[in-house]
């Protein structure tokens, strides 16, 4: 592959895709800096802080999926979105179940393991 002159259309598309990556970078930075700043420099109540951290993390994951991995809702016959949703379902079942089971067990037989 050698350098190739881009058509007008291609150049536009390149610009669009570059902007998309930049958006991803910017949003990710924002979503990292916000919880980090709150955690490092403020004395926020733990519970609120955890909610914020969790929410930012979730949003940032979606940002990465959207801008870096190009997973979109576009309906052009793609199995990967289904696959992700299915994975999320299984992850929720397995992790949620694990947490439920183990913390229930802790409560009943080894309270000192509750963090």
């Amino acid at each position, binding site marked *: 592959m050698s350098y190739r002159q881009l058509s007008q259309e291609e150049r536009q598309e390149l610009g669009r895709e570059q902007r998309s990556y930049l958006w991803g970078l910017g949003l990710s930075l924002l979503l990292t800096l916000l919880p980090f700043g709150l955690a490092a420099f403020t004395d926020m109540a733990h519970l609120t802080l955890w909610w914020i951290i969790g929410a930012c993390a979730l949003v940032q994951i979606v940002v990465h999926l959207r801008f870096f991995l190009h997973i979109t809702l576009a309906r052009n016959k793609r199995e990967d979105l289904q696959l992700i949703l299915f994975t999320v*379902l*299984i992850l929720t079942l*397995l992790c949620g*179940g694990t947490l439920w089971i*183990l913390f*229930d067990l802790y409560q*009943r*037989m080894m309270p000192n393991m509750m963090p």
Partner: protein
Amino acid sequence: MTVTEILFGRLGWDALPFWHMLQNPTFKSVINDLIASGAGLMVVLGALVVVAGVSWLGKWGYLWREWLTSPDHKRIGIMFIVIALVMLARAIVEAVFMRAQQAVGLNGGFLTAEHFGQLFTTHGTIMVFFMGMPFLTGVINYVMPLQIGARDLSFPVLNLVSLGLTAAGAALVMVSLVLEPFSTGGWTGYAPFTELSYNPGAGVDYWIWAVSLSTFSSTLSGINFAVTIYKKRAPGMTLFRMPLFTWTALCTAILMIFGMPPLTVATGLLALDRYLDFHMFTTDLGGNMMNYVNLFWAFGHPEVYILILPAFGVFSEVFATFSGKRLYGYTVLVMATICIAVLSFTVWLHHFFTMGQSANVNAAFGIATMLIGIPTGVKVYDWMLTMYRGRVRMSVPMIYAVGFILLFVLGGMSGVILATPSVDYQVHNSLFLVAHFHNMLIPGVLFGMLAAVNYWFPKAFGFRLEERWGRRAAWLWILGFMLAFFPLYVLGMMGMPRRSVSFTNPAYLPWTVIAGIGALVALAALACLLLQLWVSVRDRDHNRVFAGDPWDGRSLEWATSAPPPEYNFPVIPEIYGRDAFMLEKDGGTPFQAPTQYQDIVMPANSAMGVIIGAAGFAAAFALTWYMWWLVVLSAVVMIGAAIARGFVRTTHYVISADEVRRTHEYWLREVEATTPIRRSQEQSGANRGRAVPPVEGAVQ
């Protein structure tokens, strides 16, 4: 550290199976060591015979080119099944030993507790990881691409790697017969019993690495199958036109992809505990053994459905074909399969109801478990309705299928009983549980695989299996199973625990004796199977079915020659509906020559499977015995091979259109020359693999 210690790690003379007998010759130790040495000797002799045989025949080149490095999914499938059969032979012998021990186990018996522990552990581990998994992987490998009209799997070389990893794991288990001991922790390997402080020997490490190799293999196979089914279907083959076996293969693949990781985590963390002094599951310093149990079953339960779903698929094909009728409720069956697959991730706690969690948790998981009974029941009734208003031919696969239905519902019933926490508190860890799962595994998985072999054997090898010995084997199987395992329900209700080498309650004795007899009957069934195989090979010319359609089949795999050419289909077929081949036959257009032949690009041979398999085996063996240099060496080989693979550019070769045409036209001529037969002649020499058109056939 001496040089031997560096070279051989902790492997010493005491690993030889007869060492204890020499050190401490008591009556029991002599008997047990003789048995163990006999087994070890069999392994060594077996390996020698194979090596000598191949050398004698001068077939090393053939073996290497046509089998070990062949990326052909059909060859790989057959090799998987061969591994499964070899391992099955060992696991059966172990089962018979266990039953023999318990038949005389009142206050003693002939086996030591240690030996018995190794027996149930290897038996369970082999049956699940090295018999069940390779068998179903092999069958899916062989059949699924044919059913969807594909030339091969999506990743043929990865397929070879899967095969290599499974072979490596199987070899590791076999080597543990020569260099002892194996784990005694059961196939579940519960910590903290398997932690270093309670089990310092090499046994648990053998188990960890053998299981890990198998896990990696299955994960990769699962990915391969799923992608193939998603991306390689013939044009027109929509998801809801796929044969049911392919559907079950897809669900199995998904279960493999998502079900194996928890096991990787469980065994991986256990290994970290044992090798690097972690405290994940230890009893001290904050380790939490309950999480091992949790992780193991988060894999373990999906695993049992990995095992059963392909069998369901096989039975679906068998019921439809041998009833001469469409599958009743195709869509519903598909939905039920998907339901089962998803639900199987919601029930794993039912394996440890007695751990002490609160009633809410137990009840929730108990109810989730019972829910699985609904789609399973629907499948059972759909199979019955498939026979209803059909014309049922009781051929061998059908005998297995009927035996399956009748016995499986009983196992399902005991499953639902176990799913009831308040009752499970009484029968957990008893022989009732052992009866339950053999009741699922033998009539379900094993009968399914046997039916599959009888059903697709002619496709793979070009001749039918002999029918009479097959029937005998099938009936003996059903009888032997009932004799061997129904008594265990009673014993379990009487409180007899599983994994118990002997017992003191004389009331158990009659039942254990009956169960022992049952195991012997099963052994006789095995003998019949071997005879069937022998007679079939002997009379193979009499039973050739080159035309490829001996059972009046419905799906695409019957539309090609038996055995199929390596590219499966000269031209990728166009699909217009469900039961694709039957549609063609209905329309009177099977066996068409295409207007134009094209060059076919096929994957080239690759040694990756052999290399990764060998290095994987070496790494696992070295880890087990602490030979660190070999661990490093094999890791380097594996990484190096992977990198080197990236530099290979000749990954394909081309079969010319001419050659394809020649082969295909020859087959078409042969088909033309074959007299079509009615189903009444199915078992006679007249069956050369061509069926009379359905309309005529229906008239009987």
